């Protein structure tokens, strides 16, 4: 077993040197090429002073070179930070300063924008890959890395204010990769899609499970990601066997390329994570791809994935929501009730996660780390931490969990406890509704007023009154939104999730 992420590459490069490791933008790198080029980059980085634990940013549009960068930095002993190239330069500069990056791998124009936003000059910036050829293609000398050293930092937007850097060690990532390898039986013949941006943790599976198995990771070209019909053609042409994305990407395919699903015969596993999959779309998907194994993966960036649920087509018609399932191997999850006991069957509580897959904390933020990674009081014999997800779950009879929503999206209105996700599920169950979000607006008198923002399917009219009528048969009256706003689409974050912060601030502003 590998104990450092890049060993997954070096091992597969020995077994399958001439097999395609990555395919992106019409370019293919074999395992040998990827191994050699990342060795060259590691030598280059060492020459620039990068050593064990040094942070290096990856700030250029996704390409085959992104893998060379991730693996080269890791081989040099460094910690890589994938950075969204579409974020404002100010935010990118903040990440660089926050974790004191030694340098970045970037492009000329991006560097120019960055330099105007940075307070202090960068240690180094590499904008050209030409000089790589001057360095040896052999492995760099070992710098004493262990499995507990950091492999990468993923910055996630906090619900308020500054992005926070989730630190992931080699062991954290490998715990997840080895679980996936076992359960999904990824083999050298597999072709894995990479739809998620590299700063989003879904990409960890795409990249490292491909490398672990000697399989090929195929990056979705950015110029077709927005076009469902082209994307469906691409999945077919690339002969993708394992697809992983947020549900919204699959929903767009269902809505605008339904006729192409019949051609997608190579897919054997379809994975989704990151947000709740509305049941009506999931049923449609399960019907269109009758032989494909469908899995709901759950887990905040801090835990990679910590629970999983395989969709059971026999249960699907009657299920009101999809469980998040049970813990992955080498991981324990448990729910803590508001009485501070471990939830029994039928009880709800906050989900805690324990095990080697759980993050080491937030870069440079001891306080936040202490708040989220807490001593496990249920195991008093030695010091051990558990991660508080902030998610409310219910333990089901078969030992799996239902996801009920964020604890902080649990609101009180007129004294009732209201879970916003339930309101959203009720709205989404209407056939005309494409997207829906429930927003609580603070109210001095009744605690909170609920405002809903809804996007309908094209060409379908639905009045607020009719939607409320529909909802009233699914949820109690006190949960009905007071006001429904119709929009063409709901705003999304860079990772494709509904941007609740933006919606809430817009709703507040509209009301003021």
């Amino acid at each position: 077993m590998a104990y450092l992420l890049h060993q997954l590459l070096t091992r597969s490069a020995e077994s399958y040197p001439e097999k395609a490791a990555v395919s992106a933008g019409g370019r293919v790198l074999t395992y040998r090429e990827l191994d050699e080029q990342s060795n060259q980059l590691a030598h280059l980085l060492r020459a620039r002073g990068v050593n064990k634990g040094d942070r290096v940013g990856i700030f250029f549009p996704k390409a085959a070179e992104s893998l060379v960068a991730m693996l080269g930095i890791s081989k040099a002993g460094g910690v890589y930070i994938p950075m969204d190239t579409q974020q404002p330069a100010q935010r990118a500069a903040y990440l660089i300063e926050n974790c004191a990056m030694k340098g970045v791998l970037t492009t000329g124009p991006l560097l120019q924008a960055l330099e105007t936003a940075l307070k202090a000059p960068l240690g180094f910036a590499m904008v050209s890959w030409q000089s790589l050829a001057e360095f040896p293609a052999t492995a760099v000398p070992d710098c004493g890395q262990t499995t507990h050293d950091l492999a990468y930092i993923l910055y996630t937007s906090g619900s308020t204010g500054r992005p926070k850097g989730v630190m992931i060690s080699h062991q954290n990532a490998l715990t997840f990769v080895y679980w996936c390898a076992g359960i999904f039986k990824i083999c050298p013949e597999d072709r894995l899609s990479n739809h998620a941006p590299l700063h989003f943790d879904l990409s960890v599976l795409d990249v490292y499970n491909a490398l672990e198995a000697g399989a090929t990771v195929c990056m979705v070209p950015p110029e077709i990601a927005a076009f469902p019909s082209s994307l469906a053609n691409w999945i077919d042409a690339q002969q993708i066997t394992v697809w992983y994305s947020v549900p919204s990407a699959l929903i767009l395919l269902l809505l605008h390329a339904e006729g192409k699903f019949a051609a997608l015969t190579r897919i054997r596993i379809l994975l989704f994570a990151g947000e709740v999959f509305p049941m009506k779309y999931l049923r449609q998907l399960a019907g269109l791809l009758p032989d494909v194994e469908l899995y709901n993966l759950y887990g905040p960036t801090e835990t990679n994935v910590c629970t999983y649920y395989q969709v059971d087509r026999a249960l699907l018609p009657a299920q009101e929501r999809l469980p998040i399932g049970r813990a992955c191997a080498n991981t324990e999850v448990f729910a803590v009730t508001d009485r501070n006991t471990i939830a029994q069957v039928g009880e709800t509580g906050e989900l805690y996660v324990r095990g080697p897959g759980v993050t080491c904390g937030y870069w440079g933020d001891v306080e936040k780390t202490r708040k989220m990674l807490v001593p496990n009081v249920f195991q008093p014999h030695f010091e051990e931490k558990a991660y508080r997800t902030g998610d409310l779950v219910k333990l089901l009879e078969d030992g799996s969990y239902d996801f009920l929503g964020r604890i902080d999206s649990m609101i009180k209105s007129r004294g009732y406890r209201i879970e916003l996700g339930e309101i959203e599920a009720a709205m989404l169950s209407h056939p005309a509704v494409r997207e829906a979000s429930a927003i609580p607006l603070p109210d001095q008198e009744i605690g909170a007023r609920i405002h809903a923002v809804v996007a309908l399917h094209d060409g379908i009219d639905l009045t607020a009154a009719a939607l409320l009528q529909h909802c009233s048969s699914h949820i109690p009256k006190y949960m009905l939104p007071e006001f429904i706003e119709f929009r063409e689409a709901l705003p999304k974050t860079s990772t494709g999730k509904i941007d609740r912060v933006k919606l809430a601030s817009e709703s507040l502003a509209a009301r003021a």
Partner: protein
Amino acid sequence: MESTRQQIYDFVAGIARQKGISDIGAGEGLTENGIIDSLAIFRLVSFLEDTFGVRIADDEIVNENFASVDTVDRLVTTKLERRPAAR
């Protein structure tokens, strides 16, 4: 009345502004710079259908037609020319 092209440009510029991009060129790649993503594309399609009374099929929602303001204009203009009686 504003030209088709100008109306398309204004709408796309509006999307760009929401994303913090202040300046776009008519021939500029809309997907490369992130102005048109999987959500914005359907806002744009609805806008074109509502404003110009054209129908854009799922198969036409591809990069070749939505690469720039110029290509979008060509798509809409071609559709409008094909059915002069409707307007």
